[in-house]
């Protein structure tokens, strides 16, 4: 069994290692029901066919694999971009929610709840709910509702109710707590659309099954278009869904190196970061044993990142297992490096990436230094429209007549 596949209890990398299900008993029946329904659905060609059709006709999948020649010139290595930013709603997240919302429909439930950090998963959930006629409630940390107000408006326009979460650090981790509290009380008619490849079994495996198209498509496209596999693949890691979706396509190709880039915030040495695997320790958070940012007593430490989507003190258990097995490397990228990469990609390729995805681009530029002339395939997980407020502030943009205060070369 490979490191990214769970055993029957949801363990990755061996019994007791990573993953599992540390959950209130009240939710176990729902998780078991979900597990059974999901397995049956994935074995049913009617379901998988409908999922593929929706991805293709509605979400614009498969996304392109793009040869970023001007960026490559700059990097000194060939950079290929998997253009998940071109998907409907602007990120890889639509794959996951379409899968989960279809499953919800199949299970006969009428309401979905979701948590969101950046708002990307919330928008994707609201979109899928609107499209499939489901009620949708999104929990979002109060801090995030302020820094991502545009996405709150998008969700509302799509008919979802957005509930600001005021407990704890008022960010993504608290939004997950609040969604779980809702679910305990509403589980009969409600499905929890989990936004990343984390949480209790079967969520990490279930989410992977819906996002693994990223890696499967990229591998096929790379072979078809360039006749070779990449030397390395790279993705940003928040909870880990876009990354595991990409990595799953290459994990069985030992010649392909795998890199996950975590949010280094102000720098890991400052303590203000979200580099969970690089700088955290093993614990239990949100139902799974995995790397966690925690203090000596096991209290979760607040993470920090300029990117709301990476600002999470946990990580999916599959990544912890891949790291422990030495199959993938997880490294931090600072806010500053990511913002520089955002500007560089904009100015070399005319592509404005999400700040999350800019972490992967920055990381790829770094590994390119050790891999001159090699091919590095990067998951461009989302587009940057939602981050223009951040960019405006960071670069001092918005005033006509200048190109912004922090020029990049």
């Amino acid at each position: 069994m490979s490191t990214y596949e769970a055993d029957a209890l949801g363990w990755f990398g061996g019994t007791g290692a990573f993953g599992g299900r540390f959950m209130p008993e009240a939710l176990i029946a729902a998780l078991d029901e979900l597990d059974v329904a999901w397995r049956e659905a994935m074995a049913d060609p009617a379901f998988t066919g409908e999922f593929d059709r929706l991805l293709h006709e509605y979400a614009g999948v498969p996304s392109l694999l793009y040869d970023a020649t001007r960026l490559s010139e700059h990097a000194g290595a060939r950079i290929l971009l998997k253009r998940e930013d071109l998907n409907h709603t602007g990120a890889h997240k639509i794959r996951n929610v379409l899968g989960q919302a279809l499953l919800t429909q199949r299970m006969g439930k009428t309401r979905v709840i979701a948590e969101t950090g950046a708002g990307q998963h919330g928008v994707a959930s609201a979109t899928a709910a609107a499209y499939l006629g489901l009620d949708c409630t999104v929990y979002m940390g109060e801090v995030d509702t302020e820094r991502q107000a545009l996405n709150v408006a998008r969700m509302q326009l799509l008919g979802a109710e957005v509930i600001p979460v005021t407990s704890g650090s008022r960010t993504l981790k608290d939004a997950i707590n609040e969604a779980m509290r809702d679910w305990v009380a509403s589980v009969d008619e409600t499905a929890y659309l989990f936004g990343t490849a984390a949480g209790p079994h079967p969520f990490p495996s279930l989410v992977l099954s819906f996002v693994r198209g990223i890696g499967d498509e990229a591998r096929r496209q790379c072979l078809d278009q360039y006749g070779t596999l990449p030397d390395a693949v790279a993705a940003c890691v928040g909870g880990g869904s876009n990354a595991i979706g990409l990595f799953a396509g290459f994990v069985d190709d030992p010649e392909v190196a795998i890199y996950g880039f975590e949010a280094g915030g102000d720098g890991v040495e400052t303590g203000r970061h979200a580099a969970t695997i690089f700088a955290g320790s093993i614990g239990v958070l949100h139902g799974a044993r995995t790397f966690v940012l925690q203090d000596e007593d096991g209290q979760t430490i607040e993470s920090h990142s300029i990117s709301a989507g990476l600002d999470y003190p946990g990580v999916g258990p599959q990544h912890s297992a891949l790291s422990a097995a030495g199959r993938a490397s997880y490294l931090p990228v600072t806010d500053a490096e990511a913002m520089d990469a955002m500007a560089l990609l904009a100015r070399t390729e005319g592509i404005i990436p999400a700040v999350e995805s800019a972490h992967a681009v920055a990381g790829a530029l770094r590994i390119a230094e050790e891999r001159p002339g090699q091919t590095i395939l990067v998951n461009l997980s989302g587009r940057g429209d939602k981050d223009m407020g951040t960019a405006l502030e960071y670069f001092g943009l918005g005033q006509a007549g200048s190109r912004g205060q922090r020029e990049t070369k």
Partner: protein
Amino acid sequence: MSSTSTAFARARAEGRAALVGYLPAGFPDVEGSIAALKVMVESGCDIIEIGLPYSDPVMDGPTIQAAAQQALDAGVRTADVLRVVEAVAATGTPTLVMTYWNPVERYGVERFARDLADAGGAGLITPDLTPDFAPEWIAAADERELDKVFLVAPSSTDERIAMTTAAARGFVYATGVMGVTGTTQATAAGVAPLVARTKALSPAGGADLPVGVGVGVSTGAQAAELAVKNGIGADGVIVGSAFVRTLLNHPGDRAAGLAALAALTEELAGGVRA
């Protein structure tokens, strides 16, 4: 027989249910929580449950969240929780710790079991740890004969209730409502089927494993409705948010808070004897 089971047996011999009272350690502060828990003991709690404040309490509603957050903001540590256990257990009342799993895992399961036993603690109630994911805790608890209180819920299958009761010691915690603490009220009609199923599926028909009902119990009348004699046969009722709310309602006036706590405890103690 654990001290907890003994307390349940004593209540049963008196033809009533046991009253189990919860407060988080370190709320309103460490000394304040010891004083409050002692008042609850003196006013009629048969068993005490001490909450270990945690940053991500998914089973708790706003009331207990607020108290736990206050304790954490004031810097309460796991060692402080054990200090509170020691002070309360010294009264002779069985004292359990209710804790989410990560703080125990971080402290070291074996070390936690040892220090809890040394403090006179009776065992653990684990809201996010079910027996199928608890081999380490079960081994550590068995070595020291600590109580392993796992939860069953209205949504639990018969198979899981059988598995859970087989692994439990001290009592089994039946959640009265599908929901988090302090939000919905448990009713006899809602809880009766779970209590009956739990008893029927317990080893030896439940003779050795009391069933406590918690989550959604806050008044003496409810305690009476659920309790063993005239109620639906719960061996114990567990009250948490109502105690916490009582203290939250008297900020800055400790004496008034403790008096109100004593009054609520007496009301509930009357309820389990109704």
